[in-house]
């Protein structure tokens, strides 16, 4: 697909990179005519997806997370992928308040936040292979 512009960053699964990822995406998206609220929604969704990759995708493993952001004709498309454990039951993982790691005080709201703050969220995952989250937001 031909995008109007796109970028790709890759970083290890360190929690200090959560801030880096959302700020990098926000800086890239800021070349469009976006409102403060739209930028804030995008930052929050990216933060959720990257945190999921760090906390659940890799857990105690070391690995890299890839964030891609493309400017499309009507908005942005953001892809967050990891090569970690994968999700066994995606439907269950997407349910509000569900968390596989309650001991870490995860609220179980990650996917719900992504779905609320973005227009479209697609999750593909395979056990032992990794997880890819694609989020789209219309900006017009």
């Amino acid at each position: 697909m031909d995008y109007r512009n796109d970028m790709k960053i890759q970083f290890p699964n360190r929690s200090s990179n959560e801030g880096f990822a959302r700020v990098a995406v926000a800086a890239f998206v800021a070349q469009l005519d976006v409102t403060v609220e739209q930028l804030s929604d995008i930052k929050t969704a990216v933060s959720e997806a990257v945190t999921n990759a760090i906390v659940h995708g890799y857990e105690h493993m070391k690995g890299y997370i890839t964030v891609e952001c493309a400017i499309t004709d009507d908005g942005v498309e953001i892809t967050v992928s990891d090569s970690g454990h994968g999700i066994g039951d995606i439907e269950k993982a997407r349910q509000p308040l569900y968390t596989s790691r309650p001991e870490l005080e995860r609220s179980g709201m990650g996917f719900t936040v992504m779905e609320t703050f973005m227009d479209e969220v697609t999750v593909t995952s395979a056990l032992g292979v990794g997880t890819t989250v694609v989020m789209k937001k219309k900006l017009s």
Partner: protein
Amino acid sequence: MKLDKNGETLVVRLSGELDHHYAVRIREMVDAAVLTGGFRRIIFDFTQVGFMDSSGIGTIMGRYKLMQAIGGSVSAFGISSQLDKLLSMSGIKKIISVYQNEQEAVRGAS
């Protein structure tokens, strides 16, 4: 983050971006203070928080459970519109009191 201790009230002054990375530190510091200081109330000051994701919700819920176990309470003030959107969708405003400012929070929590 700064902790202000006033009698049975612990005011937790958060600053910066409340994500999973920062949440781990908040949890450790606040819980240590509550368990050693005998506080019955936690008031979160969000005035200086520029960003929050669902890790912040988990952190508030965790402290709510802790205070509930010892018969205490949790409240918050200084919520920006970005934070309010997240708090509203999470339903957390049904279990903790959110105030406009510190005076109201201190009064409400006493």
